[in-house]
């Protein structure tokens, strides 16, 4: 693995080995033999830079050389540029970037076309009208100010109905009404399983039976479960700062807002859930589950040939150097396959060569696709950008059983990450790519 010199440099410049924290030491020791080597590198860089600076400062540039160069410059500016050249140079000075010049030229073309169309329209109004698209009624969907949040309506309808544990939808989930933005109130059937899995004691206490009276939820032992559930962020906060719980039984138990939540969370606006409907998701998943067989000709399904190629380049010297002084150009490039060996291929992550990384890449793609959040590993300068570490634990069914967030994030951001993770559908493991028997944790670094 190529060491990230930028990260290590930053540490070498900033800290002695003893001042490094655990993660920083781990990074350093992945590439260096120990603290002694680290300190040698640190000292070397400091001393080398001093040498370079002192050397450059003491270097005397020949004064005669400058005069000679400037004379040559004067001799070569005898030609008077023509008007088009001067205009072009003027614009080049104003808009140095090629992109800017292109945009300017495009703008001029558009103005000319628009003026021409306008003139023509005046002269040929009927014909121009036929070319214009018909005006359409603007479609506006707005949330009516005084309308209760959709989930509150769903909560009202859900009271006394079939429990959610047996279905994938809260009974009475609201349909979009005219003028309202629809929030997706679909709860995963295993939502409770996730919450319970993080609390060993709660697992025994929790009763998925729909007939369990809500009074039981108020018992001291069950309150432990309720507290754990309360720590999991709700679907959203309403304008009064009160949580609207997805689980109607918890809401019925009269659990109040946790005052330990940061005030910053009051301003948190949940994104409008644009998740597809379940039917659409199933259709997509079904079509995606058809395995890709890139090496169909070999007839072996998930196997491809990995080839080691030797590349030979031939260059020739040019008669004249180009603008940057390059004197050699490519003549030919030949590739010869030195060896070939079969390697497994997993659909969607064809570049991976072992089951764990294949699954990890699948998890990343899954998370990115479902949440729209980017992830990067090792591409940001260490400690110079906000990085979150999201740890997702899956069971064999692809259900997330634990979520842990750490890193340079505040409480509101942590809750946002957890909330998004909670809303993820079940993850489909790539066939044969390390499907866990019990639980497996994958760590993503997000920014």
């Amino acid at each position: 693995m190529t060491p990230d010199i930028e990260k290590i440099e930053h540490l070498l410049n900033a800290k002695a080995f003893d001042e490094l924290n655990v993660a920083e030491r781990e990074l350093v020791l992945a590439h260096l033999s120990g603290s002694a080597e680290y300190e040698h590198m640190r000292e070397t860089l400091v001393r080398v830079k001093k040498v370079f600076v002192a050397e450059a400062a003491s270097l005397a540039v020949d004064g005669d050389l400058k005069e000679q160069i400037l004379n040559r410059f004067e001799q070569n500016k005898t030609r008077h540029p023509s008007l088009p050249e001067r205009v072009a140079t003027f614009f080049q000075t104003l808009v140095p970037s090629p992109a800017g010049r292109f945009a300017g030229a495009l703008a001029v073309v558009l103005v000319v076309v628009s003026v021409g169309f306008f003139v023509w329209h005046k002269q040929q109004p009927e014909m121009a009208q036929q070319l214009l698209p018909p005006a359409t009624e603007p479609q506006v969907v707005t949330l009516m100010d005084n309308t209760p949040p959709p989930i509150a309506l769903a909560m009202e309808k859900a009271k006394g109905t079939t429990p959610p544990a047996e279905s994938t939808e809260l009974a009475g989930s609201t349909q979009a009404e005219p003028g309202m933005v629809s929030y997706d109130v679909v709860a995963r059937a295993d939502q409770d399983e996730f919450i319970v899995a993080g609390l060993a004691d709660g697992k025994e206490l929790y009763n998925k039976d729909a007939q369990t009276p809500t009074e039981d939820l108020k018992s001291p032992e069950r309150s432990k479960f309720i507290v754990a559930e309360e720590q999991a962020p709700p679907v959203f906060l309403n304008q009064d700062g009160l949580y609207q719980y997805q689980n109607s039984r918890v809401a019925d138990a009269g659990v109040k807002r946790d005052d330990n939540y940061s005030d910053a969370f009051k301003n948190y606006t949940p994104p409008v859930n644009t998740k597809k409907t379940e039917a659409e998701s199933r259709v997509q998943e079904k079509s995606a589950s058809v395995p890709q067989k890139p090496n169909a000709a070999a007839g072996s399904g998930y196997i491809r040939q990995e080839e080691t190629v030797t590349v030979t380049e031939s260059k020739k010297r040019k008669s004249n150097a180009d603008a940057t002084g390059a004197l050699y150009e490519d003549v030919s490039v030949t590739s010869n396959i030195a060896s070939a060996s079969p390697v497994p291929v997993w659909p969607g992550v064809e570049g991976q060569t072992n089951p764990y990384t294949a699954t990890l890449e699948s998890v990343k793609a899954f998370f990115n696709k479902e949440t729209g959040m980017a992830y990067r590993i090792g591409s940001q300068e260490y400690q110079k950008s906000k990085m979150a570490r999201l740890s997702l634990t899956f069971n064999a069914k692809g259900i997330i059983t634990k979520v842990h967030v750490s890193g340079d994030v505040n409480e509101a951001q942590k809750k946002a990450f957890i909330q998004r993770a909670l809303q993820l559908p079940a993850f489909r493991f790539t066939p044969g790519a390390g499907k866990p028997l019990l639980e497996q944790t994958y760590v993503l670094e997000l920014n």
Partner: protein
Amino acid sequence: MLNLFGDIQKATDEHLMALAGKGNSRAFALIYDRYAGKMQWYFLRMLGKDSEKARDFTQDLFVKLAEKPHLFDTGKKFSTWIYTVAHNMCKNEYRKLSIRNHVSGDAIGVERKVSGENDKDLEMHVDKKTFEKMLEIELNLLDENHRTAFLLRYKEEMSIKEIADIMGTSEGTVKSRLFYTVKKLSEKLKAFEYN
């Protein structure tokens, strides 16, 4: 528009080159003042500390620039461009000469105390000047690509991307070269202590 008698000093390199392309001598002189020293130092380090050759190369570079300032595309970053030109000049020189400087440590009279038969047991007490000489030796022993990357990073403080653009290679390659150069140099120079 710039006030030629005041603000031109604060103009960017790209703007100065644009003005030089239009025949502005003062703009070109400013470019020379900003870069002549840097390029001479770069050539000095890349060409085995041959000061005559470094001067000649600096002269060649700026003569080219003086004769054809319009060769520079003002849409690009000037520092990257001029170092690319300098880098290619050095590459052409290496191909022509196929010379590497090998300097023996003994030739500079380094005082050594031999405390064991193994080289690792050698103990050297040198002064600062000798450290500089040893640094020069080790840099000259480096492959030119490693040396270029090292100088551009730790003297000119260029970014990895800029260095990759100048050298016509990938950022990963630059990172790898830098890391192993620093590691190797620190290994070679760790025996030295300041008095």
